[in-house]
């Protein structure tokens, strides 16, 4: 069990993200390490994987039990019971795309209807998290209700960014041009939303992310706070956290004794490591135990 994951690893996160997407894209050239897309895939033609939200969608839509479905879930379950919501920070191609877009806008502060100011939570009063934090659960539940009533896995088959991003790039003579245009449309809408309302998709809408977020509640990986006396409240951690984890709140509660557990299991945390790299006093740690 790893007590503290080294700070240096997080420097290579974006490269890892790009590499994972590359492995999927290699299918075009016939290199079959993985076949399929992030919604469902086969590794070395042996191990089936399926996205957990798609798993639940198929359960709802088919209203029954299929053994193959459960077998495909097992590798994913095992992986994310250890790593929690790291999917969002280390595998999802949209994270890479969104970060590229965000880096284009560093000099301008764009305020959409939902005020997100450099990703920081507003102090005092109702934060965005309390107002909209449960939106993602609502979206996921609405989709699942639709799936049950109409017997169609709506999100996975039509709108899932995990499929559409690869249909947009891998599509060729064996897919129709209409599909390419559709995927292009889905992706462009997400990019457009990101440009004006940074990370609203990831924080408040994406149903795939919220299912992984539930894994955070019992995963092996978690946030740990050490030496909270040294915290100077510089707020660099919440400034860098684009998922809206309430780090300062936790540190305050630890300092004044309201909370005694040094562990934080936040549903939003994607273990990107930005807070760890930002903190000058090395208070925040990510642990695997």
């Amino acid at each position, binding site marked *: 069990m790893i007590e503290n994951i080294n700070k240096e690893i997080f420097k290579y996160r974006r490269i890892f993200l790009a590499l994972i997407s590359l492995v999927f894209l290699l299918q075009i050239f016939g290199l079959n390490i993985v076949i399929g897309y992030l919604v469902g895939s086969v590794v070395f033609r042996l191990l089936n994987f*399926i996205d957990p939200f798609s798993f639940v969608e198929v359960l709802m839509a088919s209203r029954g039990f299929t053994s193959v479905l459960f077998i495909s879930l097992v590798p994913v379950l095992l992986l994310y019971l250890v790593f929690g919501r790291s999917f969002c920070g280390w595998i999802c191609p949209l994270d890479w795309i969104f970060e590229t877009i965000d880096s284009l806008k560093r000099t301008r502060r764009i305020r959409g209807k939902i005020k997100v100011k450099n990703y920081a939570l507003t102090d005092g009063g109702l934060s965005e998290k309390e107002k909209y934090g449960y939106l993602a659960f609502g979206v996921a539940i609405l989709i699942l209700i639709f799936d049950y009533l109409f017997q169609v896995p709506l999100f996975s088959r039509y709108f899932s960014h995990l499929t559409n991003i690869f249909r947009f790039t891998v599509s060729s003579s064996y897919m129709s041009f209409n599909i390419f245009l559709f995927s292009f449309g889905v992706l462009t809408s997400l990019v457009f939303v990101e440009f004006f309302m940074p990370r609203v998709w990831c924080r408040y809408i994406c149903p795939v992310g919220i299912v992984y977020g539930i894994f955070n509640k019992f995963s092996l990986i978690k946030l740990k706070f050490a030496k909270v006396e040294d915290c100077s409240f510089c707020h660099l951690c919440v400034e860098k956290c684009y998922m809206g984890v309430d780090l300062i709140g936790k540190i305050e509660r630890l300092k004044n004794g309201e909370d005694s557990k040094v562990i934080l299991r936040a549903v939003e945390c994607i273990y990107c490591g930005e807070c760890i790299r930002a903190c000058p006093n090395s208070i925040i740690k990510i642990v695997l135990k």
Partner: protein
Amino acid sequence: MKRRSFIKILSFAVSSLLLTATDYALYLYGRKGREAENLPPPLFRLFKDRLSDIRPPGAVYENEFKAKCIGCSVCINICKNLGYKSLSLKVGLSDFGTPVVDDMRNHPCTLCMECVKVCPTGALEKVHKERVKMGIALIDFELCLGWNGDVCLSCSKACPFGASVFEFYNSDWGNQPYINENCKGCGLCVKYCPVGGSAIRVVRIDDYEKVKSKYLSEFKLLLGMEHAKRYELVYSNIPKIMERGKIYDREYQ
């Protein structure tokens, strides 16, 4: 900084446009060599083209299939990687993103059953080749050479199940092949038929059940027809076959 971000956005837009253009070009290239699409498909008179799509082998019952298929495209990708290219993505309303066998003429299913092994949700069930029921192949008696005065064995030679599926009613008018209900619907016979645009068509079982009595009655009528009438019929079919002969898309052996 402003200029740099402008260049970044511009390069993103240009690369998207280039990707779209390349994709469209590949799509148009993929449609090359399908001149036979201008003629009515075989058995058009029976179906008037209101047919449902053929699903990959091992597919569960249609409503359940639409509930289970998540559009992950693993089956399509593996079919392409093995070189068969039979499966493609359907664009529809309720079955958007599901796999179909759309071009039996050029890329039939070879029943390798690899797609079944990799489906993560069980929309394609692991069944043996023998129990596959993708559909049934129906011979168009107006277009088939074996029913209009010649002896052609191409379809039966292509069939992986041979004698268990094909029956021959040899007569003066040709070897008169008939495909019985053991047919799995793989479509190999469709590909190897020398008539331009094929004289065989694979249809789903439920579509077949709707026209079964009409099809069988035509079959029985032809078998029992007396000589003079049959002569007239065959000689009226010949121009239709000749028209398809102008489409050079298969070698006649």
